[in-house]
């Protein structure tokens, strides 16, 4: 279980997270929604300690991880986590196969002779084959994302943090990724935290949903309850309406 208490993060004078309280249950899919710039990515980057919060606590199985300093403890924390980056963040200098198996060397004790087979299996899991030798620059945007997901899956994390896993994918591929997230939950009990703007996908995969607005949680609730919520912020976001309490303007 991941418990987040009063989490705050500033970048200079910009307050991105202004006191987030949230509980993410084991084995569930929790989706985080909210407008651009409301701190969704910052929040999940704090969970895996890519960003150090200014204040507050993040308890992973009861242990506060916000003050971990040593590289060893950080490595132990990250052993249990996987992170899917928005643009994939594949290593340009390595082949697809090397990308997929990259984490095995650092996070697991897998012998090297098994790497090729694992790369093949993981790529098959995301619907790709025979591309191990290609370079990331030779792949389309959607393929990059799927290879990045294969790289996350290769190390067998217990918790996967997805930063917009279906953005830039065609509807069919989005559906496949959604099914994969649910499959991982059912078969392996993987906990997923998914940032998404795709409401259809959010309602399909979520056990719990969270709405973030101006660095705070507006509503965190089980899916059905969230769907029926009368909260004007949530309602406006779900309906995708430009009228309501969330003010977004096009700056000229």
């Amino acid at each position, binding site marked *: 279980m991941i418990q987040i208490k009063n989490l705050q993060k500033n970048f200079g004078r910009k307050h991105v997270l202004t006191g987030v309280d949230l509980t993410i249950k084991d084995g569930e899919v929790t989706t985080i929604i909210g407008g651009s710039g409301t701190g969704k990515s910052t929040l999940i*980057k704090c969970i*895996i300690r*890519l960003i150090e919060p200014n204040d507050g606590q993040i308890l992973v199985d009861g242990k506060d991880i916000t003050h971990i300093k040593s*590289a060893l403890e*950080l*490595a132990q924390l*990250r*052993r249990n*986590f*996987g*992170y899917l*980056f*928005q*643009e994939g*963040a*594949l*290593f*340009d*200098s390595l082949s697809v196969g090397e990308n997929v198996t*990259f*984490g095995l*060397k*650092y*996070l697991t004790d897998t012998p090297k002779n098994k790497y090729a087979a694992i790369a093949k299996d993981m790529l098959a899991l995301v619907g790709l084959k025979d591309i191990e030798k290609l370079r990331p620059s030779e792949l389309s945007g959607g393929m990059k994302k799927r290879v990045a997901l294969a*790289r996350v899956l290769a*190390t067998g994390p217990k918790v996967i943090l997805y930063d917009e896993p279906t953005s830039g994918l065609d509807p069919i591929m989005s559906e496949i990724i959604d099914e994969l997230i649910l499959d991982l939950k059912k078969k392996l009990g993987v906990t997923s935290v998914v940032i998404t703007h795709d409401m259809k996908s959010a309602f399909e995969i979520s056990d719990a949903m969270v709405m973030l607005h101006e660095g705070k949680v507006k509503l965190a609730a089980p899916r059905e309850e969230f769907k029926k919520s009368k909260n004007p912020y949530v309602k406006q976001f779900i309906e995708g309406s430009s009228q309501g309490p969330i003010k977004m303007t096009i700056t000229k």
Partner: protein
Amino acid sequence: MFKELGRFLIAFFNQLGQASGMVRSAAVWLFKGPVEVRQTMLQTTRVGVDSVAVATLTSLFTGMVLALQAGVTMRDILSEPLYIGTIVGFSLVRELGPVLTAFVIAGRAGAAGTAEIGTMKVTEQIDALHTLGTDPIRYLVIPRIAAFVIAIPVLTLFANVSGMFGGYLVSVHSLGVSSFVYIDDIKTFIKVGDLMHGFIKSIIFAFMIAVVCCYKGLNTRGGAEGVGKATTAAVVISMVLILVMDYFLTAILQAVGI
């Protein structure tokens, strides 16, 4: 104006502190974990093998022009081109070899290193390294420092030889110095200490270039434009530092008798 100066000094010492922090982490990682052998070899090849041609060519012509200038000057003053080998050899081994090689490598491999690490930074690949259980210091910085420190002194040696050969060509074929005299001038006056002088300099320059370029790369911000700025800054800072440090190193090394 004082405000500007203050801001500059704060930024300068801030960056110096951060760069020192990076070197400290590199030292810690070096003792803690296995070195990335494959990465180190790859980088050494990129910095070293791929730069042999440009380093030796630069030095060849430097040696040639040194011989030409020295020959003409000597002929004007002493009516004979004396000690050309010594002048070319000394200038190259103690000064121009290490400095020019460091310049060439800073412009070539240093810039490439900053651009690569900077691009990795702005495309979240550095974050990805963290999430996959390694550290950019271990995976990117240490192999590069090692590559620069291994490759630059070796390249400097090549540059020295090539420069002296350039001087030889001009002396023998254009100034009419006999090949025996040119070689003897070098052998008689240039001592192991002079080679050490250049060697120590080149190691320190190499370390400096690697640290500046990695630091600038890891602290890149703001997309493609940021990568461009970081790369330019890395090369300019490296070159200025090489020249500034060259003076102080020469002073220190001479004071201790090397």
